C-alpha cells in the first residue's frame, strides 16, 4: 500500500527513471592530462626548479597554475561520469598522451640551464635587453646586469667607463670559444626577463686565469678589477673559485 503511494510521487519516479552515470573515457583521459600538468607545476614549485625556466618576475605563475590546474582536475573528475559515455578515438588518446610528454621530459631529465651552446647562438644580443639607467650603473655595487646594461646606450657606456679600476665580484659560468686564449675565459650569465625564451647574455672577458683550470660551463666566482673598454668589458682576475650552480641561475633585470 505505502509503496504504491510512494511510486506515484514525482521524486520517486525521477530516481527510478534516472539512468546510472558511468565513467566517460574522454573525460577521464582529459582528467589524467590535467592531473599530469597540475603535478608538474606542483613539482616545479616544491623543488624550486621553476628558476631554471622562468625569471623571478614571472615565477608566480607556477603556484597559480598549480592551484588552477588542480581545481580543474578535481572539477573535471567530479563531472567525468555521464549517462551515455562514448568511447574515445584512438587518435585522440594518442594526442592526449603526447600532451603528457613535456611533463615527462621536465620531471625525468636532470636539472639543466642554458649553457655555452646557446651563448654562441645568442651572441648578437650580448650585453643588452637590460633597462638599467646610467645613474644606476654609475653608483653602488657593480653587477653583471649593470655591465650588460652599460652597453645598451652611449650614456650607459660612459657611466660604466667611469667605474674602471673598481673591484668587482661576479658569479657566472665559464664560456670558452675557439679563439679564447689559454689564460682567459668569458664569464657569462643569462639575463631573463620573463622566461628562458627571452634570455639574453651578459658576458665579461676574464684575464689572468690559470690555464686549463676551468672548463666550459663550470660555475665560478670571479673577484678582480674591472676595465670597460668600449663594448668589451675586461676583468683582471685576482681570485677565481669554483662554486655550485646558484639556485637562481639566471639574472633578472
Amino acid at each position, binding site marked *: 500500500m505505502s509503496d504504491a503511494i510512494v511510486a506515484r510521487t514525482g521524486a520517486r519516479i525521477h530516481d527510478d527513471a534516472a539512468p546510472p552515470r558511468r565513467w566517460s573515457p574522454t573525460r577521464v583521459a582529459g582528467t589524467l592530462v590535467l592531473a599530469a600538468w597540475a603535478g608538474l607545476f606542483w613539482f616545479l614549485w616544491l623543488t624550486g626548479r621553476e628558476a631554471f625556466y622562468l625569471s623571478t618576475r614571472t615565477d608566480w605563475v607556477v603556484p597559480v597554475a598549480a592551484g588552477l590546474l588542480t581545481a580543474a582536475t578535481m572539477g573535471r573528475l567530479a563531472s567525468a561520469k555521464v549517462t551515455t559515455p562514448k568511447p574515445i578515438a584512438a587518435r585522440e588518446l594518442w594526442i592526449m598522451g603526447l600532451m603528457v610528454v613535456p611533463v615527462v621530459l621536465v620531471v625525468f631529465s636532470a636539472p639543466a640551464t642554458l649553457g655555452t651552446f646557446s651563448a654562441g647562438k645568442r651572441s648578437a644580443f650580448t650585453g643588452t635587453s637590460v633597462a638599467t639607467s646610467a645613474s644606476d650603473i654609475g653608483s653602488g655595487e657593480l653587477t653583471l646586469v649593470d655591465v650588460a646594461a652599460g652597453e*645598451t646606450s652611449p650614456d650607459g657606456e660612459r657611466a660604466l667607463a667611469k667605474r674602471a679600476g673598481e673591484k668587482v665580484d661576479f658569479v657566472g659560468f665559464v664560456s670558452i670559444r675557439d679563439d679564447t686564449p689559454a689564460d682567459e675565459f668569458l664569464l657569462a650569465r643569462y639575463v631573463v626577463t*620573463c622566461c628562458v*625564451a*627571452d634570455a639574453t647574455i651578459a658576458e665579461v672577458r676574464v684575464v689572468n686565469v690559470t690555464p686549463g683550470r676551468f672548463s666550459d660551463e663550470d660555475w665560478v666566482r670571479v673577484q678582480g678589477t674591472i676595465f670597460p673598454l668600449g663594448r668589451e668589458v675586461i676583468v683582471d682576475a685576482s681570485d677565481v673559485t669554483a662554486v655550485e650552480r646558484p639556485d637562481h641561475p639566471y639574472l633578472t633585470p
Partner: protein
Amino acid sequence: MAQLTAPIRTSGAGRMADRRTVVGVAAMLVAVALLVSVGDLGRIAWVRTFFVIFGSILIQALPFVMLGAFAAALVEVFVPIGVFEKLGALPRPLQLPAAALAGLAFPICECGSVPVARRLMQRGLMPSAAVTFMLAAPVLNPVVIASTYVAFRGRSTLWTMVGGRFLLGMLVAIAVGWVVGNRSKEQLLKPNPEEEHEHMLELGRPEARWRRFFVHLGNDFLFMGRYLLLGATIAAAIQTFLPTSVLTGVAARPVISVLTMMALAAALSLCSESDAFVAASFVQFGPAAQLGFLVFGPMVDLKLVALYAGTFRRGFARTVVLVSAVATFVGALWVGVAFG
C-alpha cells in the same frame, strides 16, 4: 523529469581506443622517461638547450592558456546568450575600435586571448569584433604598455615605441577585423573535438552549471594546449639553432630590417609581456624595425599560428598573417619616416 546526457554527434575520428591503445600510450611515456633519465639525453648540448627553451615556453604560456580557458568557461556558462549581441547595436564604425579597446580591461597575453575570443564568438559576439579583440588585447593591455615603457625608459624613442605600439597595434587589429567582415562564426570556427565527443544535451533542464563550467574549462585547455605544444616545439627548435648574429647584417637597411624583425618576432614566439625587453636589446635596429617586432609578434608567431590553425577554419590563419603583416609593415615604415 528524467535527466539524460545524450551525445549530439560523435567524432568521426576513425578507430576507437581499446586496451592496446592505452598500453601503447603508456609504453610511449615510459620510453620517453627512460630515454631522458637512463639515456641521459641532456648531456647532448643542443638537446639540453632545446628541452630548456621548449619547457620554458610551455611553463610560461600554459598558465595563461589556463587563465584564458577559465575566463572563457565563465563567459560560456555564466554570461547569458545575447549579451554580446547587444554590442552589435553600436554604430558600425565604432564596433571594431570598441572591441580593440576592450583589451585595455583584459591583462591577458596572446595565448589566453584565443580561447576567450573563440568563446565570445560562440556566445554571440560579432566574429569580426571577437577577432579584433583577440589581436588587440595582447598589445593594448596595461601590463604590456607598462613593460614597453620600462624596456625603453631613458631612450629618446620611448614615446614613439609606447604610443606607436598602442596605436599601430589597435589599427592592425581593426584592419584584420575589417577584413574578416561579416563572416559568421560557423564560417570561422572549427568544431572542438573535445566537445564533439560528449556534447551534453540535457532533456528537460540544463545540467548543473558547475559541471558545465569544469567541462568547458578542461575542454578549452586540452584543445588549446595541443596546438600550443606544436607551436612551442617549432619555436624552441628555431631558438636552439638560429644564430642571431645573422641579423646584424640587415639592421641598416630600412625596409629589410623591418621585415627581418617581424620575421624574428614570429619565430621567437615570445610572450607579449616580455617581448619589449628583447626588442629593446636590438640596439642596432631603428624604431621602425623594433615597432614591427612589437606589433607583429603578439599577433602572429609560431605558437599562435598553430593555435589559430586549430581554432579557426582553413584560410583564417592566412588572413591574419597576411593582413597583420601588411598593416604592420606599412605602419612601421610610416613611423620610421615620421619619427625615425
